[in-house]
Every structure is written in structure tokens, then in C-alpha cells.
């Protein structure tokens, strides 16, 4: 269609810990990489959408431009929990879809602290409720998510752990992942128990990182002769949480994910069988399990068997998190959503190297953040 939107350039830096660098510098590196990938200059970019969580008040997008060229363009700084990066990408998409711009850029960047994430809760309370009124740590919140699946379908600790084995295996093929290390099932299951069933190796890695993507209108892609390496944005959807009965006692990530996934399938006029690979939000191993069903990759109740069949492993029916995922590639919150796009684009271009999903024509990205914000995008080989 005449108003289709394409990704024409993308990059991510190798995720790691860079305490001596700044978010400006980290963001600028992937932004320059994306410009180089597309063969464009900063003067070609008409708007920048920059996602970051921990310096949300810090005009990070403007600071990135101070590093790579202050052209005076529209800059929008975006924060939307773990969906921040995908939200920036969606805004860059909408900037073109609306007809306002021909070429936009999304940059996601984060410097993370280390250790247990998630507040202890109890703002305004005289004593912390943590450990008295249950737990509000992120591993505990997502442990509840997983054990609800166990309650319904009998999913086992070993099955949840196997997801971590798989994603760590995938990361050995991704030089930009934080870790490239196999973690056998026994090692995953016997690593420090954080919040049952999530052991330390089943929790995402806090890393610093950045990723960038440049989007362009169909007219402009053709005018510049960039179609040969362009990837079409087939669908974009963003949701918040609808009310669920346990809204107050137990954070829910299922309903919002289902809303976004179903909207993306409908907007793209495609179905789950059309998807060849997925980068989904494995912030904890338990989360990946429930999202197989939430993203309609398998029927409700079949996620455990779907995993066991090898369907989501590289070489399977629909490989999930071949990048290594948040569990091993790492999870720099503001960058993650854009990094997912980078990964899918590599596969659709046939440039993913050792982890290439053969014949990939369509890929899905998914992130879901506390609060709740969920984004799903479907990308398609031209």
C-alpha cells in the first residue's frame, strides 16, 4: 500500500556493562550505526523518538543529537516501562503513517543498575510491607505469573528452566549478547533460587545497551532506491491492561499481551501460522512460557508441550528469542524494544549469521512492562 512504512536501517551495540560511558554516548553509537546501515545522514532524519526509563526527565534524545548532529528536528522522549523502546518505535512508525514525515528514527538506550529490580512497595507506609504482605520484587511478581500457569496446566519447574537453557543456547550464536555460554538444565535448576520457580539463571540480565531503527515511507524508500534491504512494518499495536479480577493482588501481563497480539494480527491481516520467528519478553523464564499462549503461538494449556517439542528452539517451527532473549542477551529496559526490531530485521534480511532462521519471511516482536504496557509489532520481508 502507498502509505506502508519500512525499516531501512538498524543497529544495536553489544550489550554489556559500561559504567564509564554515558547514555548519550551509548545511544549515539547505535544511532550512527543505523544511519550507516541505511546509508543516510543525520540531516535525512525528520524526527527522533528516544526511549529511556531511568533518566526519563533527562532529555536523552536531545543529548543523543548533541553527539551526532543537532539539526533542530522534533525530539520526543518516551518512557513506558519495559515497553518504552517499542513505544518509541511505534511513534516513529506513526510519524510516517500520519503523513507528517518521510523518515524518522527510534533510539532506545539504558544504563541499568545491578541487583534485584522492582520496588519493595509500600510508598507512604511507615514500615515496608515486603516479606510481611508477600513480595513485590520483579522475580516474585513473575513467579506468580508462572505458577498460575502451573496451577492451570501443571507446568513444571523443569519446563520453566528449559526456557532458560534454550535462550542461553541461542545466545552462544549471538556475538552482541551479554553472555555466550551454555547453561545445562541442571545448572539452571540448581543456581540460586530467587523466587520459586525462578532461579538466578531464569532472571533477565541487567545490562547497559542501545539500539536504533530508521523508518521510512514507501515513497521515500523507492525514491532513494533502498527497497532491496528494507523490511516492512506489517503491523503495530500497543495496549494497556484491561481490568482483571486479581488486578490488585497479582499483576497481570496476559490480558494486555492478548489485546496487543490480537490487534497486531488483525491490523496486519495475518495469523500466528504466518510468523516465522518471535522475539518476546522473557524478562523471567516463567514469562516466556505464558506468552507462547498469549501471542497465540500455541493453544491455551499447550505451552509446556510446545516448548518440549522444540518448536521454539532454533530449527523448530517458530523459534523464539534466537537472540538469546532478555535472559542472556540482556535487558537494558529502554533499549529492549528497539533491539527486538534489530534482531528480526537481521533474519528477514538473511544477515543473522549462525543463528539465522532459514527462510524467515515474517517476524514478531513483543514487550510488556509493569503497569501495564504491551507492544507487538509484525515485520515482513519485502
Amino acid at each position: 500500500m502507498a502509505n506502508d512504512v519500512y525499516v531501512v536501517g538498524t543497529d544495536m551495540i553489544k550489550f554489556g556493562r559500561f559504567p564509564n560511558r554515558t547514555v548519550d554516548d551509548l545511544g549515539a553509537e547505535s544511532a550512527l550505526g543505523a544511519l550507516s546501515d541505511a546509508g543516510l545522514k543525520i540531516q535525512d532524519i525528520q524526527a527522533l523518538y528516544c526511549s529511556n526509563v531511568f533518566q526519563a526527565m533527562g532529555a536523552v534524545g536531545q543529548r543523543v543529537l548533541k553527539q551526532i548532529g543537532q539539526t533542530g528536528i522534533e525530539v520526543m522522549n518516551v518512557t513506558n516501562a519495559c515497553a518504552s523502546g517499542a513505544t518509541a518505535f511505534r511513534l516513529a512508525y506513526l510519524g510516517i503513517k500520519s503523513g507528517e514525515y518521510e523518515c524518522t528514527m527510534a533510539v532506545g538506550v539504558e544504563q541499568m543498575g545491578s541487583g534485584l529490580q522492582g520496588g519493595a512497595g509500600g510508598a507512604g507506609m511507615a514500615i515496608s510491607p515486603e516479606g510481611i504482605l508477600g513480595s513485590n520484587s520483579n522475580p516474585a511478581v513473575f513467579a506468580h505469573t508462572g505458577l498460575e500457569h502451573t496451577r492451570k496446566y501443571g507446568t513444571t519447574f523443569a519446563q520453566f528452566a528449559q526456557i532458560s537453557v534454550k535462550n542461553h543456547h541461542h545466545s552462544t550464536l549471538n556475538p552482541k549478547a551479554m553472555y555466550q555460554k551454555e547453561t545445562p538444565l541442571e545448572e539452571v535448576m540448581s543456581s540460586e533460587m530467587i523466587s520459586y520457580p525462578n532461579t538466578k539463571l531464569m532472571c533477565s540480565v541487567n545490562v547497559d545497551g542501545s539500539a536504533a531503527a530508521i523508518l521510512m515511507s514507501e515513497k521515500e524508500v523507492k525514491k532513494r532506491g533502498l527497497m532491496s534491504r528494507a523490511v516492512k512494518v506489517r503491523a503495530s499495536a500497543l495496549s494497556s491492561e484491561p481490568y482483571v479480577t486479581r488486578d490488585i493482588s497479582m499483576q497481570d501481563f496476559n490480558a494486555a499481551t492478548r489485546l496487543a497480539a490480537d490487534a497486531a494480527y488483525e491490523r496486519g491481516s495475518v495469523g500466528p501460522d504466518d510468523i516465522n520467528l518471535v522475539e518476546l519478553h522473557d524478562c523471567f523464564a516463567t514469562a516466556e512460557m505464558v506468552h507462547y499462549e498469549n501471542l497465540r503461538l500455541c493453544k491455551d494449556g499447550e505451552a509446556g508441550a510446545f516448548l518440549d517439542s522444540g518448536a521454539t528452539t532454533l530449527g523448530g517451527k517458530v523459534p523464539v528469542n534466537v537472540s538469546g532473549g532478555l535472559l542472556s542477551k540482556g535487558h537494558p529496559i529502554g533499549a529492549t524494544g528497539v533491539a527486538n526490531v534489530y534482531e528480526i530485521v537481521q533474519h528477514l534480511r538473511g544477515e543473522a549469521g549462525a543463528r539465522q532462521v532459514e527462510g524467515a519471511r515474517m517476524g514478531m516482536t513483543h514487550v510488556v512492562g509493569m503497569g501495564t504496557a504491551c507492544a507487538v509489532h509484525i515485520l515482513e520481508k519485502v
Partner: protein
Amino acid sequence: MAEAAVAPLPIVPYLKIPESGAPYLEGIKCKACSEVFIGQGRLTAGKHVCQKCGAIEQMETVKLGNTGKLYNYTVVHRSFPGVKTPFISAIVDLDGGGSIRGNLINVEPTPEAIKFDTPVKVVYEIAPAKDKEGNSYLSYYFTPA
């Protein structure tokens, strides 16, 4: 520094300590959609709007059930600094409506010892922590019924 209160204070505002009689948990119920919420919910410009159905000023205060069933749990082994582990973080669906999170006590903190749908009762005990003025707090806990 203020004097510590003689009697324990409620750990959350919806834990009620009557002058006579047993403590209980309080909630609100929407007369339009019958959903039960823990506590007094959110006020918008002084008005109660139902989080589920959007009905305005249809809430009635209700005494929540003191029994329920264990819907979900996790055994927490690593928490924030100063928090004693392991403990069981439990999600309990109260009889009569409302779902609430708290610690499940008097059960071994191992998955083998915990069964979904175990009937539980709400009990009230002094919380292990005091605030900086030395006040004690009464908390609710769940224990197998």
C-alpha cells in the same frame, strides 16, 4: 520524637481494629457490577469511580471475609536488604469476594508443602518490624484453615 502508640497500628488502612471485637479487613463493593475491591479504592476528585465498570459513586463499604482459598504463591528466597527469607508470598481469593496478597504462614516454605486451593483463614499478628518512632504494627497473615 513522637511517643510510640501503646496499641499496635494497622499495617494498612484497610485492616480495621475495632475497640471491641476482632480485627478484620475492609473493602468496597460496586453496586453496579458487584466487584469487590480491597481497601477504599481510589478517589477521583473526591468521588469513587469503579475501576472495573466505571460506575460513579456506587461503592458501599463491606467487611471482607476472614476465610478464603490459596489461588497462587511463590517461595521468596531473595528479597530486598533486611527482609528475612524464605517466606511464602500468597495470593488468596477471599470468600465473599476480593483477592489479596500476603504471607502464608505455618506452612513449610517449600513447593512440596504448598497446595493450590488450600482453604486458609486470615489471622492477625504483630509484624516483625517497627517504624522509626517505635510503633508496632498489626498485620494480616494467612494460615491453613
